């Protein structure tokens, strides 16, 4: 990913924000300003808070899982953090809502990076994956 970021960098016009446009594509910024599935869930069956002390990013994921069909009936997240952590939490919660636990088993780092569709440098990886850690914690 880092190499990719470097390669892409050369192609972009610095004056035109260079990599920043790529890294913070408009939909990422939109999700930061208007996150999806943001808020609390009263009747959550599962929840977990994950904290990234380094950045101060802080995400709590709450889910309602139907114990008959193991389907995620609803999911919300709350917290604060950088654009990358907030956007990836929006994308992840969108992605898994309505799916069964079986269906989301395969969600991993690559899946998250794919959803974000922007190059994430190694130092920002933890931001992108915080929501996944929160989800895994909740499902444990």
């Amino acid at each position, binding site marked *: 990913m880092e190499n990719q970021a470097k390669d892409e*960098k050369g192609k972009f016009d610095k004056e035109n924000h260079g990599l920043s446009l790529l890294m*913070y594509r408009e939909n990422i910024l939109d999700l930061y300003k208007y996150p999806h599935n943001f808020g609390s869930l009263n009747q959550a069956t599962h929840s977990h808070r994950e904290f990234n002390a380094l950045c101060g990013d802080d995400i709590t994921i709450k889910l309602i899982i139907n114990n008959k069909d193991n389907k995620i009936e609803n999911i919300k997240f709350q917290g604060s953090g950088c654009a990358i952590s907030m956007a990836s939490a929006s994308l992840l919660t969108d992605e898994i809502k309505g799916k069964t636990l079986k269906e989301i088993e395969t969600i991993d780092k690559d899946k998250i990076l794919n959803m974000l569709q922007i190059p994430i440098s190694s130092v920002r990886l933890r931001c992108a994956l915080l929501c996944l850690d929160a989800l895994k914690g909740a499902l444990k």
Partner: protein
Amino acid sequence: MKQHFPIFENNPELVYLDSAATTQKPKQVIDAITSFYEKENANIHRGLYGLSIEATKKYEEARKIIADFINADENEIIFTSGTTHAINMLVYTIDSLTWTEKGKGKNEIVLSEMEHHSNLVPWQQLAKHFGYKLKFIPITDNFELDHNKAREIITDKTAILSITHTSNALGTINNAKELINLAKQKNPDVITIVDAAQSVPHIKIDVKELDCDFLAFSGHKLYGPMGIGILYGKKEVLDKLRPFHFGGDMIKSVTLEASEFQPVPNRFEAGTQNIASVIALGEAIRFINRIGLSKIQDHEKQLKKYALTKLKTIKNIDIYHSSNTDNTSSIISFNLKGIHSHDLASLLNDYNIAIRAGHHCCMPLMSALNITGTARISFGIYNTKEDIDKLCDALIKIQEVFNK
């Protein structure tokens, strides 16, 4: 000035605003390291041949230059790997000074709310193992230490006072002298320590005037190499301090049963030291002396003024800097509303602008300020007004993208 620093030749676009993390290195310092390994490499204090004698001489010359720089005596300068190492070494052995008959009942360690983790976490450990109580001098709304509160917090039970001279997160220069005096009035046997990692590179330090027992700083923030730092200790205090490490070089004589140690400072430098870096740090101080610390200070002061004025014209900016700018260093922390400092630093990187973002190893300070982090810029002698112009232009553009 940039021409003295090869990093700028190799990265011509670089706007480096992170000297508080580490300064760039002048060619003269890099050359000193290369030259040592290419022409003079030998271990010190051991060989009886020319190279070793020469290496020993240069090593001790560097000690003298460093001592003069802070108005200490040569035998009060102990080489460490950095500030963190220096403070830790002290924490491991300070009981030999404080855990004494006289020290009975004196069970408080006083620090401040704006300490770097390296002047906090080690003391937490000491407190845990010896049952000391940690107390903290709070900060005022103007990002300074509250000396009125300090007068209550420091008591006759204060065994140790360890204070940062300049805050790496806020740039505030603390009145360490007054706090040290205060502590000594309350307990004449108190051990006082100054974390000078951020002050030694920028303001004239006189350990005799400060009257501290110990003072720690890092070479790499002082235009010197990484992996070398200094623990200054007052001679009569060092004489009572137990050595940190035992082994070669620190002994006078050894039998199978027992050993006699060298006098200070050698008894605190066991094993082969980072000789090349010591010599290069001496060279870094020669470099500073040639320019003149007061000239460096003036330059940085002007930059700081310029930057503060210019930053204040940016909309939706929060600046965490004392209004008493005579008592601040060239470090400015800020946040743009609605933009996480890490996003800001990542985006500035695209403009080749290097800044630090986050909690700056001061998580308790961030909590006290009720924030999770800041964007921080800090200057060195190579920075220019143009660097600040580029930063401000970029900040405005980033704001436009974010607020679109």
